[in-house]
């Protein structure tokens, strides 16, 4: 295990932020800490980096107890949401910082920094200053800077959170490719479930300072531990007292076994998919169907349809309130 977090508790004042958190991160993996804001995921990442000290519990990095080690001795790479670029240093000197601190020979530093700048596609901007870079370029520089010291683990705190949607998507795919090239154990924090599913090979869901579920993206999506995880990982709707994914519902015009009747209230065409909003009695729900299906059924508001979960659909029974 690259990182073992055991029974960590942390409070800010009287507010508990982490409660009995235990997480294992496998060597070479790319793990996402996913959860709503205020769930404690950033604090957990900062505890791993040594930027916050846990009240109780231990953190082991590569088998070594790092709980009481200062950040400078942990050999972790940390990437901040707002880049934390050293504004008075050029791109080259930013990336070289950790190596200069370690007093490596000049030519070695030059070689390594240029290699890293090539890796993050900034080799032509080595002499620029951070203020002359775009957000995406700054974040890539920050990543190169963190990788320069050959960290045991790379920690990224909402690395794409401050970037616009287009750049975010590009960098996501790029981070995945980079990880496949560099193989450094990586943990990143995100509140975007799509980002976690797309990039990570393990997802740890945190809410209210507790680990709710950990597993591969497929496991967490298909077998959510509770309604909260199911809701957080993707769209859900409620039929017959169960939580179901809207794309896991069969819709037909005639009555079917185990189906419940519903009245169509609205049909929204979103490109290739169609969102059918219905009322089951007084309860509102919605179903995601293909265009072809919608055309075949000729759905119009006011029509009565019959709904049932498709065979093999994952659903969670909601306990009666």
């Amino acid at each position, binding site marked *: 295990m690259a990182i073992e977090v055991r029974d960590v508790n942390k409070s800010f004042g009287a507010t508990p932020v982490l409660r009995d958190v235990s997480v294992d991160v496998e060597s070479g993996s790319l793990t996402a800490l996913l959860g709503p804001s205020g769930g404690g995921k950033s604090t957990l990442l900062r505890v791993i980096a040594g*930027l916050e000290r846990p009240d109780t519990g231990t953190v082991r990095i590569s088998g070594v107890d790092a709980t009481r080690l*200062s950040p400078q001795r942990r050999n972790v790479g*940390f990437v901040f949401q707002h880049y934390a670029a*050293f*504004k008075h240093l050029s791109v080259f000197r930013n990336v070289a910082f950790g190596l200069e601190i370690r007093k490596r020979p000049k030519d070695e530093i030059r070689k390594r920094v240029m290699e890293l700048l090539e890796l993050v596609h900034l080799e032509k901007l080595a002499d620029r200053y951070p203020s002359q870079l775009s957000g995406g370029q700054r974040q890539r520089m*920050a990543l190169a800077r963190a990788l320069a010291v050959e960290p045991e683990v790379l920690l990224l705190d909402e690395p794409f959170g401050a970037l616009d949607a287009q750049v975010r998507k590009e960098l996501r795919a790029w981070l995945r490719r980079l990880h496949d090239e560099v193989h450094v154990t990586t943990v990143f924090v995100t509140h975007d479930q799509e980002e976690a599913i797309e990039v990570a090979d393990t997802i740890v869901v945190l809410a209210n300072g507790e680990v709710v579920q950990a597993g591969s993206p497929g496991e967490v999506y298909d077998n959510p531990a509770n309604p909260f995880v199911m809701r957080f990982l993707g769209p859900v709707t409620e039929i017959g007292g169960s939580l179901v994914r809207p794309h896991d519902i069969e819709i037909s015009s005639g009555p079917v076994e185990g189906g419940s009747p519903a009245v169509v209230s609205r049909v929204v065409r979103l490109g290739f998919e169609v969102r059918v909003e219905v009322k089951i009695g007084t309860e509102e729900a919605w179903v995601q169907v293909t265009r072809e299906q919608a055309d075949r059924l000729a759905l119009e508001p006011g029509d009565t349809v019959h709904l049932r979960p498709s065979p093999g659909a994952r659903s969670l029974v909601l306990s009666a309130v």
Partner: protein
Amino acid sequence: MAKHVLRLTAVAYILFLLVLPVGLIIWRTFGDGLGPFVEALTSPSAVHAFKVTITVAAWAVVANTVFGVGAALLLVRHEFPGKRLLGAFIDLPMAVSPVVVGLALILVYGRFSPVGGLLESWGVQVIFSTPGMVLATVFVALPLVVRAIVPVLEELGDEQEQAAHTLGANRLQTFARITLPGIRWALGYGVVLCLARSLGEYGAVAVVSGRLVDQTQTLTLFVEERFQNFDQPAAFAAATALALIAVVTLLLTKLLRPKDLSDGN
């Protein structure tokens, strides 16, 4: 119309309060050419006053720079009980009259006080001597460096410092390589302001120095003493010298200020 009235008022205000008095001093100083000016400033008493002023100001600037950076870091980067109180105390010299500061220092460090007596028995004379004048100057110029740095430190945030830590830098390396370059223009600005204030200080120094000619007389005290003794050429020459120093420091602060702002974004 209103704009013209406003402009005229502003110009007249500046003219009668600033330009006219300073201009008159300069005119009187150089009225008889450069010769008397140089002569007045190279007299033994004037040269001595220059030396005393520079010694006192230099010590005060060094002390306030070290204290100012430390206090600013403490106020911005750390949480501790009494933090607001410390912030308020640092601003105190702005509110207290320098004369009061001088008297207070005599109460504490004078020969007949416990602290002053103890120091005297060790051979250290504070009041009527350079240490007392340095103390007085340090006190009156205390907030300038702190107040120049604090907003820049706040703006800078601590993420760059944390990043440096995770890259293996210890506290000292982080301070020297990240924090100090981040605040350098603000620090320069604060130091120049502190220097200007220290060179021009009169009230507190007048009380603690005892105004001993050729011993504890600074340039400002020299101006006053010469004027009282009807030696107007010397008084005006020294006053002009002080004014010139002030203009130079003002220009320096103008040079430092815009850079600081562009550095902050």
